[in-house]
């Protein structure tokens, strides 16, 4: 238990300045009448929601004995800090919390305030997502958008309960300040990691271990399903017929279909994942070379990797076994700024026709937020 707890905290760089309540947020997805349900849930949890993991992890870190041993290892968690497991239903935009009863009175009050903030965030998240759904009018009241998103997730006749990881292109491994005020249009996996707590890269090695498998795996799943949806993906899901309890086929006597269905990849641009790690290039190189199964993701260019040198503020792109300096081709001044997020989302470009080429034209470039 201690090892699990410690590795987790060190991995995300959370070793001091603990807030009174720390939330573990798992993700899962609710959808009805959808044989590809599992593809919307957590890939690292074998296509199931991660709720159990969140609950277990918070139980571990709330444990008195665990905290005592962690203290001897230099991680001091104040007695006032409590960990809470929770889950975000990414299709319905609903957030549920586990074991709220363990909270102390002060923390329970803080929790109430936090919950309200989370609700606001969910509303805005729902609005941002709604621009991609033709059945929802993005311009209506937030509460109504939220309601429409929710009913969509339980609708029997909705082949697109959510767009899942569609459009994923980035994995940013670093402090969250690094990517703050950056609008990435839901493209990035954000992995917390603080290079200042890890000068020799020992933790980075552990952090980088699942990146290729999980983020790269998801990215390639979308990539290949999009490149040739008919052969490497599952094709349109409308005629799918559930075979046994393990797969779908197109009809009574067709082959089992691999990959993702058309409805999940329409908005996806098939580009390989770009992993950005905030650390010195030589340490990043050491971390990804730590084991051959990690290194082959990068060596064989299944995913791209860039080291963001924290002191120089320079990008180093990994190519042919070495990191070399990369000069961005886009001038920083060309990146526009969003002043009013709601207006911006409402005014975003809508597809001309329902053809797949026009669907990906809805994808927005990078913006700054003010």
């Amino acid at each position, binding site marked *: 238990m201690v090892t699990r707890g410690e590795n987790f905290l060190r991995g995300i760089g959370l070793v001091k300045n603990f807030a009174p309540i720390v939330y573990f947020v798992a993700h899962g997805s609710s959808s*009805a*009448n*959808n*044989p590809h*349900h599992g593809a919307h849930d957590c890939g690292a949890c074998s296509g199931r929601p991660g709720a159990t993991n969140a609950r277990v992890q918070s139980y571990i870190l709330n444990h008195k004995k665990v905290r005592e041993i962690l203290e001897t290892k230099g991680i001091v968690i104040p007695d006032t800090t409590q960990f809470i497991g929770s889950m975000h239903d990414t299709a319905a935009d609903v957030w549920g919390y586990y074991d709220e009863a363990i909270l102390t009175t002060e923390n329970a009050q803080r929790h109430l305030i936090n919950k309200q903030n989370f609700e606001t965030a969910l509303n805005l998240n729902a609005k941002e997502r709604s621009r991609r759904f*033709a*059945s929802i009018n993005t311009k209506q009241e937030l509460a109504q958008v939220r309601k429409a998103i929710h009913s969509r997730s339980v*609708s*029997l*006749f*909705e*082949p*697109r309960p959510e767009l899942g990881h569609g459009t994923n292109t980035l994995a940013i491994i670093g402090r969250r300040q690094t990517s703050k005020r950056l609008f990435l249009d839901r493209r990035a996996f954000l992995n917390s990691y603080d290079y200042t707590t890890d000068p020799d890269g020992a933790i980075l090695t552990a952090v980088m271990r699942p990146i290729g498998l999980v983020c790269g795996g998801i990215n390639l799943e979308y990539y290949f399903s999009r490149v*040739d*949806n*008919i*052969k490497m993906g599952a*094709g*349109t*899901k*409308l*005629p*799918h*017929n*559930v*075979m*046994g*309890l393990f797969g779908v*086929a*197109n*009809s*009574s*006597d*067709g*082959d089992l*279909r691999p990959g993702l269905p058309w409805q999940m990849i*329409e908005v996806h641009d098939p580009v390989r994942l770009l992993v950005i790690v905030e650390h010195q290039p030589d340490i990043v190189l050491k971390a990804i070379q730590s084991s051959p199964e990690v290194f082959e993701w990068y060596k064989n260019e299944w995913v791209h990797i860039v080291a963001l040198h924290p002191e120089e503020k320079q990008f180093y792109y990994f190519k042919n076994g070495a990191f070399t300096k990369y000069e961005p081709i886009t001038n920083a001044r060309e990146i526009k700024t969003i002043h009013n997020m709601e207006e911006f989302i409402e005014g975003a470009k809508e597809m001309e*026709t*329902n053809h797949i080429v026009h*669907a990906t034209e809805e994808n927005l470039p990078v913006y700054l937020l003010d």
Partner: protein
Amino acid sequence: MYQLLILFVAIPLLAFFATLLWQNKSEKAIGKIVRFAKVSNILIALSFFVGWLLNELEPISYKVATLYETDHFVFAIQLYYDEVTAVFSIAGAFLFFLVATFSKYYMHRDEGYKRFFNTILLFATAYNFIILAGNFETLFIGWEIKGICSFILIAFYRNRYLPVKNAFKAVSNYRISDVALMLAMWMMHHLTHQNINFSQLGEAKKIADAANQTGMAIFIVCMIILPATIKSAQFPFTTWLPRAMEGPTASSAIFYGSLSVHIGVFLLLRTHPFWEDMLWAKIVIIAIGALTAIMATMIARVQPNVKTQIAYSSAAQIGLMFIEVALGFHWLVLVHFAGNAFLRTYQLLVSPSVLNYLVHHQFFHYIKPTQKVVSKIKASIYILGIKEWNLDTIMFTYLWSPFKWLGRKLQFLQSTIFIAVLAVAGTAFLILGYTNQNSIPSLDGALPIVLISIALGVILFAFSFRGSAIKAWNYLITAHLFIMAAVLFNAHHINLVEVIFYASGVLLAFLLGYYCLQKIKAIDKDISLNRFHGYVYEQNTTGFLFLIAAMGMLGFPLTAAFIGIDVLFTYVHSNQVVLIILMALCFIFIELSAFRILLRIYLGPHKKLNHPVAFRSS
């Protein structure tokens, strides 16, 4: 009030034409038209039902129009409304509403959005036509349109091989049912010497009894049971049903889960007055129903995929309905029909959920299966069920292969000289037949048989020909010449207008089809029937035009040829067994040959590889 009956058909038909005017991306506009159609369909069905209740439940018969009339033949559109129609129309309207609403979201952004709604609107028209039909001719119009809608929806994903193959399988079965119905109409005409309405079926039976024409009556009943068996997927035709589940789930739900597949039951209910006193007919129907119920249950319980399970369970229930119809429990049948139709529609629509439900169940209530010794008999039944009683193979080997074999034996016809000789001979016979109807002895009926045999030979040749599609198409029109000549020689007197009806429709269809094929040939000089070309991918409109041509070629209710074929049939006498069998085979295989050309040239995987192409087995 009776005029309101027309609305049942007119509204979906108008909506169908209205949706044709929009483009695929105009989902909102198409959605509005469909909403109008589906809501008014329910309103009409309900309000007419209430009106009919207030009118003391008397069956309503209403003549819409007489399309063609001579001394010996009347072709009228006749509508009829009774309790059977009431139940079928209300259930149909609600199911159409459900499926249309479901599909509005489900089909969103599909490349065939417009095509899907066009087809189901046309299907609604055909369905209402069938259930409201007051005579065989009207029923037959709906019957044919419904068959085509079925074909289009099974082959909805037309650039994959399996949907196209299975659509053809369904259409081959449907065509037998169409021709059987045509024969029933033909014999009924000879029996009663008029075009009788369904309300007069009881009288028709009395005529048969009085004239001591039991043979004719038996023939008619057989030709009613056969199409009912095929359309309702009863033994031995059951296997087309699970294979028809190729289109979007919603279309499978309305067609093969609910409305379409119960049409056989409807036909039996409708014609019940005619055969209610014939014990043998009841025994046959009960036997078919019982056999299907047992067989389909055994198959359904061991099938590994959800849609096949539903299809076979539905067929089993329909088997029970057959038994109920034969036993005379008509209200029970109507309740059973409505229940089964709604249940199967629901099951099919939520069939993607089965994974969630059952995996979830396993997750929480997993019981490790215990190893048991399975008895030999149980294992045999299991294997029999998995193999679907080998019915599919049996049908193919014993029903279709002999004709293919015969067609291959006729490959000597492919030389160009032959087609020229045939065309000239056909035309000569046609002119001769028309100008000298009485003066040339038809050699005791042998000449028509010879001519129709030539026609059948030519059609079978085209059916198994693997060379140029244009050549096959030319052979089909030649076959039509011989069919017409045979009929002319068989008749003592024939109206010119009837020949023109027939010839004009077929000729128009031929020319249209010829143009479409030439257009494809111009692309890269290859239109051999040896493979699938899938030209609909780049020649969408041409493909559609060729579909129309193929339908026109066989007397689909598009051109005057439809009436022409029905009229020409009446010139074959009721005792000419050989002639009528050959003629029926001609009409079965002429459609199959025309559709085979459509399939090979326009449907299936596109031959060019500048875009994703699905595996043949996917």
